[in-house]
């Protein structure tokens, strides 16, 4: 029988302090209050003082409440039976079905040895030209959707998840609106994907700190499945909420903040989660698609900024479209050389011309006379936006490439594209 402690010395934010012996760092405890039982985690030890972060929040914690140390770290089941189930941020069933206790696995485990990774080479086809053609998504990539509140980032994420051919989908929701949770559930159900989905959902009405465990649990389960040879897609939405929870704890612990109140280790914290994306030698893979909402559409805000340095690119969703500028897939070079030989050339040329179009738009808005070249660009820009950027377009990559050539030929002379001559001779549409 484990010892029960009754004397809480300090309650500050969501962190409580008790005096206890023989407690290990990062261990779990249960605290029983008038409101019920909540999990807590050891986040600092100082002599016999133990600092615990309470996942359900400290509201209603009384100094004589009961604290019981469980003598173990946070664990999650990695059983096959998880599929089709929904859990909350503390890993408890949310769907009124029994808890699963088999194949328990510690969360936040060690990182994969870089020597056991392989170079990602498999493209994920999404049917979205702004992704397939311009910023190809690759198996084992970690990539966030940068967006602002109100943009359709969750539907975009759900759409990619539905079109991607993966064995398992794991949804980690942090601060998810209840509507969005239902949206995911219904979409998955419609496409018959619910039975191969595991959901860890922390909704906006749950205690803030509880979302801290969501990425770790989702990724621990994903890792277990990937080792068994499955290709797993992990959806994390919204990582900004996760970062804000980290900030809250850091400030309670009186850590020195680095930038806008966020802790100095925000980069390492985010990286240790995102880096779980992997293509394992001789086993499965983990692909991470996340959402990072940017407060005030500011990409230099600490959360998107740190995220950008960690992830392999980002999709920048603005005004309901994936913007070609600001979006980037770092792994596209791994796959777009093997699709069709005009893929890279079309990608570079179309973006460069669209960039010129944007400059022309500026000139136009200032009332300058449009030259012949400007008019060509204006025509091109309109085509580009309707044929490539519009999110309702759903065509395979090859069709998108042909459409690209068609668009170029309709607007420009061959030499104006600045492409290599042999490609132009082969692909330029004959009239």
């Amino acid at each position, binding site marked *: 029988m484990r010892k029960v402690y009754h004397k809480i010395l300090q309650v500050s934010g969501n962190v409580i302090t008790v005096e206890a012996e023989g407690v290990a*760092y990062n261990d779990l405890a249960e605290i029983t209050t008038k409101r019920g039982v909540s999990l807590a985690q050891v986040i*600092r030890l100082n*002599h016999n003082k133990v600092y615990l972060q309470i996942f359900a929040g400290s509201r209603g914690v009384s100094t004589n409440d009961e604290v019981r140390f469980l003598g173990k770290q946070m664990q999650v089941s990695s059983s096959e039976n998880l599929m089709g189930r929904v859990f909350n941020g503390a890993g408890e069933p949310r769907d009124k079905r029994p808890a699963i206790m088999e194949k328990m696995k510690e969360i936040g485990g060690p*990182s*994969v040895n870089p020597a056991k990774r392989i170079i990602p080479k498999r493209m994920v086809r999404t049917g979205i030209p702004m992704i397939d053609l311009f910023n190809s998504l690759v198996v084992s990539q970690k990539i966030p959707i940068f967006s602002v509140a109100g943009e359709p980032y969750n539907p975009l994420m759900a759409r990619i998840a539905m079109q991607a051919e993966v064995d398992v989908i794991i949804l980690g929701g942090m601060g998810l609106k209840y509507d969005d949770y239902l949206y995911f559930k219904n979409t998955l159900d419609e496409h018959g994907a619910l039975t191969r989905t595991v959901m860890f959902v922390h909704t906006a009405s749950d205690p803030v700190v509880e979302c801290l465990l969501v990425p770790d649990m989702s990724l621990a389960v994903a890792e277990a499945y990937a080792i068994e040879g499955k290709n797993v897609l992990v959806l994390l939405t919204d990582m900004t909420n996760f970062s804000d929870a980290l900030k809250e704890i850091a400030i309670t612990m009186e850590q020195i903040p680095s930038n806008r109140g966020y802790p100095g*280790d925000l*980069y390492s914290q985010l990286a240790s989660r995102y880096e779980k994306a992997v293509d*394992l030698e001789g*086993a499965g893979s983990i692909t991470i698609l996340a959402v990072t909402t940017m407060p005030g559409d500011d990409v230099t805000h600490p959360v998107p900024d740190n995220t950008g340095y960690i992830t392999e690119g980002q999709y920048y969703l603005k005004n309901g479209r994936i913007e070609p500028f600001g979006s980037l897939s770092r792994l596209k070079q791994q796959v777009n050389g093997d699709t069709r030989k005009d893929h890279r050339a079309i990608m570079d040329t179309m973006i460069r011309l669209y960039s010129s179009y944007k400059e022309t738009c500026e000139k136009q808005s200032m009332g300058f006379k449009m030259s012949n070249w400007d008019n060509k660009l204006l025509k091109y820009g309109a085509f580009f936006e309707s044929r490539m950027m519009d999110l309702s377009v759903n065509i395979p990559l090859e069709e998108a490439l042909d459409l690209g050539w068609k668009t170029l030929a309709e607007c420009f002379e061959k030499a104006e594209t600045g492409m290599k001559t042999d490609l132009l001779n082969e692909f330029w549409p004959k009239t």
Partner: protein
Amino acid sequence: MIERNTGQIVGINGNMITVKFDTFVTQNEVAYAVIGDKKLKCEVIRIRGANADLQVFESTNGLKIHDMVEFTDELLSVELGPGLLTMVYDGLQNPLDRLAERTGFFLERGLYMPPLDEVKKWDFTSIVKVGDSINAGTYVGRVPEGIYTHYICAPFDLKGTWTVESIIANGSYNIREKIAVITSETGDKKEVTMTQRWPVKIPITCYMEKVSPEKTLITQNRIIDTFFPVAVGGTFCTPGPFGAGKTVLQHSISQYAQTDIVIICACGERAGEVVEILKEYPQLEDPRTGRTLMERSVIICNTSSMPVAAREASVYTAVTLAEYYRQMGLNTLLLADSTSRWAQAMREMSGRLEEIPGEEGFPAYLESLVASFYERAGLVKLNNGSLGSVTIGGAVSPAGGNFEEPVTQATLKVIGAFLGLSRQRAEARRFPSIHPLESWSHYKSIVDEKMIEKARQTLRKGNEVNQMMSVVGEEGTSIDDYTIYLKSEFLDSVYLQQNTFDAIDGASDEERQKHVFTRVINILDARFNFKDKEEARKFFVELRQIFIDWNYMKFKCDKFQYHENSINSKLKEFAHA
């Protein structure tokens, strides 16, 4: 044998533990926290009264108050000897391939392995004979290591002059075998093997003097070698926001730079990027030697999800290895990606120590640490008169892409070349996105300074005209100004921009750069007779097309010559005599 020095844990906060020690501790010594049958490596970073604060190089999960800590009385060190090349290490010099053989997919904490192959036999040839006097760093013998001769140096920490008492006969030995015995003036004896240990945070200083770096290090990147050159033994940094192509640029430099040894330090960055190097370098050929790139490389890889404290150690491990090969008279290039992550690791630790923070939470000693790191670069005259060098290139990842932040500023003060990457250029797909107007270099270019000044002026003026045009419009711009603008755009697209992913365009050697740049300057010098802007634009578009095709052709092959002629004839269409 002294009794083992121990202590016990009295506090745990993240990856920092506070230990009450029994007898004495040394600042920066290595200790091990004992947890079950495992020992976690730590380093003493602060001593206060009877308590020492230690940073733990592993996850501290599960450690308890009163757990035992063993002190080693040795500073954090690496092992130096034959067999370092082609290895892939973590920040503490654990060989990752061998760890993978032991533990499979995951890195297990508390598992440390010898960094060098202890079984492999090396063909040893002695250089000194019995009775010779030697000093720290004297070559005792040599073994062949791949394409290089690996000199076995006398321990770098020898004080005064020692005498060789015995030396082993030439033959095959492993690194643990005793190859020599040496005696000091006071009669102390020391055994020498092919390896030695050296504390990473202390520079190796067994050389006569540092000399000033003069020679240009050819990186085969046009914009670097021509406009912002790096010297052999110099320092440079490549700051840039995410997505600006820092890592691609570093890979390109590591691949094409004409240097003997490349040490790649992936410090707190993505694992995927290291994997590319790991899997591709054993296949890619180094044109200088005809062997694979891996044979001239050592990779230190402490990616972002690996323990933070080891990340801090990794840059020191890397620079120590670079200095070691410098001692053999080789030119080494250290590429650290990214030094910002290293600085962040220091910030995390400083925060845990509750030190008074400087700007943006970085410790106040950030600048001096950054400076002393870059100061370990240099061209040195070794004691035997030959030259060796360490060139350091650091990527910097400034928060928000803002170069005003502390790490970039601290770095700018101490480096010789600043290659600033720009988000605007990256978004316009102008790669490498080194900003041609904001970057600078103190080193000597491969082409004549006057020609560069001319090109720079064109870029500056072209930029001015472009800005003016956005105010007054194209129609308000004179044809002469417009031509200057077109010339600067031309220079940018055919010379400054380079396709790293193309085998030919990606690597442009010194001769080719000189040849092509002279041609570009001819065009910038030429005076043209255009009847209107449309004609001018069309001319440059076509010229650019021929030039880009030309860039993709093998230097001096028949097609290359043919294209050069067509550039000349194109030029004659509109140029004055």
